[in-house]
């Protein structure tokens, strides 16, 4: 690592990103890759809506529709929403707690590359015989019988990606517990950090059941086991239980960070502290806990029995309470505040009614007898899109504007942002509000087409037009990103002027070591506190000294690549149920695992103490010379 400024060529930049363990660069990687998959998932959504624009349409055939529908859900949840949220967690949380990096920088990189190769593997299915076609939920009876390797791409790709997510979850938990700056007690942490913390705990506890469920499906399809084969004593409901024991906490893993983002944006642009901080923390913890107790509300119609249905129905309704607490606290934060309608604030204002609509239809579905009517109809589709788009996607779009300066040093155009928001908001309600009624009229979900003369034509047409509006909105956002990058107009540390938390106290983007001196945290909304006392910088907690930094490494890339290779071997092994096993299957599996475990061994056999930035270089950096 040099201490003198060096003009970097393209090759050097590529190598830097391949080997980086810096949480800020990893955030760029997550945002870019997640953003790419968001566009892919969006195109898949467009194709669905084009096919369903009119009855008996033949834009795509049934098989292709099933693949597109499956990949839309799988891509959006696992490859777009989660990674983009990880991008913001990586960019913001270490700085919010006054740390110089996460607890395990090497594992942070590994988490990204596992996600990357898992996502690549899953999407290669399009070119290698067909994508998975049993829905993002891949229920075992249907998915066992799926011809071709689509489902195998699903199981193997998600398994690899899932390891990455689990590792990152542990990383953020350890970071938030161990690496807070002096004076930052748990009850002085910003809300985005709190929600990251709880979401990471959910990841730790919810991903193992998914891991097992996916392994069981993988073993049944690739190695001849009988977990879900009823004729051999198996049981398909086991898949549903595992999927939803994971799946329900998963939606809270998605929405809690989004809640955290809004809990930063709303106080900032109301120029008023968050109302009811303690109850917000408590509500987040309660949502996290209850989220594990409700999974069978996805299984009301499977015949669990009245007692089980009643228990899960009541638990599901209970979750509305802490969520309601949060909504009221956000409203009360704005009440009496000095509101500034920036693009992030616009998304926050759009989020509140949209998410609440989604939330109340959720409580409707919690009533088990009513769910017998609503299950597998478009009503459900409407509900979850309202909470996911109204909550998670709005949160992501808001954070993209809000944190862009901190991540890239420039600021996205507010004018274009208003246009994107308006088109997206109108398009979103157009598409999904009408779907409540389509569902109530009996239109089933996941159907490739529908018949004329049943009153479904107008609703589907309106729904598809809304999708086009959302597409235009996203294109304008892309345009915004490109124009901003070309203009490259640099901004300062606190470009929104009302930043409350520590990330707004340091440069945009921060120096690679984040803080020259670890800050001293004197209260909640640390930076706001210092600003109100007239300070221009955070109070330091230590004298200026050498800073210890971790080394870059290419090994995470190779550990992930090994699993990618092994997945091909597993898929084409001689025992697979598709029947096209190749003789090279087992050797490739072993070679792939060899690359992975060999890389882990290389990593472990060497001592890696990192390196030090010397005090003198830090002082020079003060005077304008560049460090690193």
């Amino acid at each position, binding site marked *: 690592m040099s201490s003198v400024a060096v003009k970097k060529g393209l090759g050097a930049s590529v190598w830097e990103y391949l080997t980086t363990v810096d949480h800020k660069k990893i955030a760029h990687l997550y945002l870019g890759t997640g953003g790419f998959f968001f566009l892919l998932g969006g195109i898949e959504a467009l194709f669905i809506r084009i096919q369903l624009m009119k009855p008996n349409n033949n834009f795509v055939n049934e098989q292709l529709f099933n693949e597109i529908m499956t990949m839309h859900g799988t891509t959006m949840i696992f490859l777009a929403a989660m990674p983009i949220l990880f991008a913001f967690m990586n960019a913001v949380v270490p700085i919010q707690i006054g740390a110089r990096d996460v607890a395990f920088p090497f594992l942070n990189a590994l988490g990204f590359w596992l996600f990357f190769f898992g996502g690549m593997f899953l999407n290669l299915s399009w070119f290698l015989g067909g994508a998975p076609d049993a829905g993002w939920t891949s229920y075992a009876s249907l998915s066992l019988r799926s011809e071709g390797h689509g489902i195998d791409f699903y199981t193997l790709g998600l398994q690899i990606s899932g390891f990455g997510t689990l590792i990152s979850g542990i990383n953020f*938990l350890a970071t938030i*517990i161990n690496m807070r700056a002096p004076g930052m007690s748990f009850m002085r942490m910003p809300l985005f950090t709190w929600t990251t913390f709880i979401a990471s*705990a959910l990841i*730790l*506890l919810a991903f193992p*059941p998914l891991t097992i469920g996916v392994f069981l499906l993988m073993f049944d399809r690739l190695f001849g086991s009988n977990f879900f084969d*009823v004729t051999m004593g198996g*049981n*398909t*409901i*086991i898949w549903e*239980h595992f999927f939803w*024991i994971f799946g329900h906490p998963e939606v809270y893993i998605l929405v809690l960070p989004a809640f955290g983002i809004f809990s930063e944006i709303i106080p900032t642009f109301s120029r008023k502290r968050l109302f009811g901080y303690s109850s917000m923390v408590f509500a987040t913890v309660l949502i996290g806990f209850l989220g*594990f*107790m409700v999974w*069978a509300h996805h299984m009301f119609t499977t*015949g*669990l*029995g009245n007692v*089980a249905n009643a228990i899960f129905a009541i638990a599901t309704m209970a979750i509305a309470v802490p969520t309601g607490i949060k909504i009221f606290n956000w409203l009360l934060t704005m009440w009496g505040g000095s509101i500034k309608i920036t693009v992030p604030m616009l998304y926050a204002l759009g989020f509140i009614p949209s998410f609440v609509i989604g939330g109340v239809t959720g409580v409707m579905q919690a009533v088990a007898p009513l769910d017998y009517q609503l299950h597998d109809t478009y009503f459900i589709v409407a509900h979850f899109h309202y909470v996911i788009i109204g909550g998670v996607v709005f949160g992501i779009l808001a954070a993209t504007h809000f944190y862009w300066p901190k991540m890239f040093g420039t600021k996205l155009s507010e004018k274009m942002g208003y246009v994107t928001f308006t088109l997206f908001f109108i398009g979103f309600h157009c598409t999904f509000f009408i779907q409540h009624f389509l569902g109530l009229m009996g239109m089933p979900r996941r159907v490739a087409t529908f018949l004329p003369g049943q009153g479904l034509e107008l609703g589907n047409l309106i729904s598809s037009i809304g999708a086009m509006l959302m597409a235009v909105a996203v294109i304008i956002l892309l345009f915004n990103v490109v124009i901003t990058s070309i203009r490259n107009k640099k901004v300062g540390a606190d470009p929104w002027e009302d930043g409350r938390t520590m990330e707004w106290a340091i440069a945009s983007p921060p120096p690679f070591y984040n803080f020259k001196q670890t800050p001293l945290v004197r209260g909640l909304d640390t930076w706001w506190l210092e600003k109100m006392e007239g300070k221009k910088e955070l109070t330091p907690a230590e004298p200026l000294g050498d800073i210890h930094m971790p080394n870059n490494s290419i090994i995470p890339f190779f550990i992930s690549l090994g699993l990618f290779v092994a997945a091909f071997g597993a898929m084409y092994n001689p025992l697979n149920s598709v029947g096209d096993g190749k003789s090279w299957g087992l050797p490739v599996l072993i070679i792939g695992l060899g690359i992975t475990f060999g890389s882990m061994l290389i990593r472990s056999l060497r001592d890696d103490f990192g390196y030090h930035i010397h005090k003198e270089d830090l002082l020079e950096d003060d005077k304008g010379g560049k460090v690193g």
Partner: protein
Amino acid sequence: MNMENEQAKNPNLRAHHDYRRKKSAKEMQVQVITFALMIFLTIVAFIAVGTGDFSVKFIIPFILLLAVIQVGFQLYYFMHASQKGHELPMFFMYSAVIIAFVTVLAFVTIIWW
């Protein structure tokens, strides 16, 4: 920095070292006793099943209880969970145990096809 000089200069270091050695040795004794108890519990469980004299309704809760006690020994003594600094780890472990319990409960009650 010369380590040996420092040691000669600091009698407290020696005293602390001796104290710590004694404490470690006592802890080790506790560990060995724990080990003996774990062997005993294992033998009891195997005998209880091996003789075949007891009814199923009694044996299953009994050996599960023995297992839980043995796991408690492993966690709290061998894995030092009883020592300070383990509060958060144990909080997460117990959270995991709750989820684990709910999962197993679901699988043995509401799967009946």
